[in-house]
């Protein structure tokens, strides 16, 4: 399992826990004090990221288009911040 935390400058805290299988995300869970509207978007996003490789640009685009397509508003964080915390977790893995 990989664990990461990222405090968005001037924004909220995003934490992540996930597992990889053959280089792609097997399951992932975000927690934190951020806001997403509608709130149901978070578990949908988590399902949406299964099978993705951990690449900041690709993840960021994937999450941004998920937000756009669903009319999701993130407050205190951005699509890129969610991608960033995932990459940080891999970089900081022991």
């Amino acid at each position, binding site marked *: 399992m990989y664990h990461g935390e990222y405090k968005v400058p001037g*924004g909220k805290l995003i*934490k992540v826990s996930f597992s990889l299988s053959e280089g792609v995300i097997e399951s992932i*869970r975000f927690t*934190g*004090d951020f*806001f997403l509207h509608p*709130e149901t978007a978070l578990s949908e996003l988590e399902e949406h990221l299964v099978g993705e490789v951990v690449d900041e640009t690709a993840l960021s685009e994937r999450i941004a288009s998920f937000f756009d397509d669903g009319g999701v508003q993130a407050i*205190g964080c951005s699509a890129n911040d969610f991608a960033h915390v995932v990459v940080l977790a891999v970089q900081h893995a022991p």
Partner: protein
Amino acid sequence: MDEIRFIDLEVNPAAKNMAIDEAIMLAMRDGAAPPTFRIYRWKPSAVSIGTFQGMTEEVDVDFCRAHGIDVVRRMTGGGAVYHDFEGEITYSILLPQGHRLVPSDILKSYEILCAGIVAALGHLGIDAQFSPVNDIVAGGKKISGNAQTRRHGIVLQHGTTLLDLDVEKMFSVLKVSKEKVSDKMIRDVKQRVTSIRDALGRHVEMSELRDALVQGFSEALDISLVPGRLSSEENKVAEDLARTKYSSTEWNFAR
């Protein structure tokens, strides 16, 4: 002037407080309840966490159980809040989307609704400002936190205003390793968070804060608060939700 149903200061357990918000929202969705403003306290004292937070990441659940402190997950995002029975009053305001007080711009609507708290603090003699996204500060220190959700065509915003601050208790309830609760850390929190009694340097009664909130929201939002109560249907739904959702491990420990 808009008339808003006003449910005056009540005292409930955590699950009931959160269930009442949702019950009002569902009744409004069905056209069975008017826009509503309510103020309330938490008995026993409780910690509420944001809807996306991890319960065991944020809260020392064992400490809470041992000390009779409730824990509950909110339906709103944001951070963990310790609701001391003697130390704060929480409000909730529910308005239909499209109401003049809740524009589609969520950030703007926080500022509009938080003006009620700023005005309330002003009446108590505290110069406070809205601090985006969702806080109110006095003297640069946080004194109120707020959170909003929009579902079923209804906007719910709730928030706390600190009357008093027990930093040691807050650290015991929220998950900070015990070793870290050093004097330095307590000082650091006191530099970031304040309360009405701290800011004024005098004892302020709960009733003064209640009166200030009523006056502040009425004036700043230009609304007429009409005393009211929950319908029997709202009460029934609230009791059901308190039991089946907001007291459940499935909901409270969902993350």
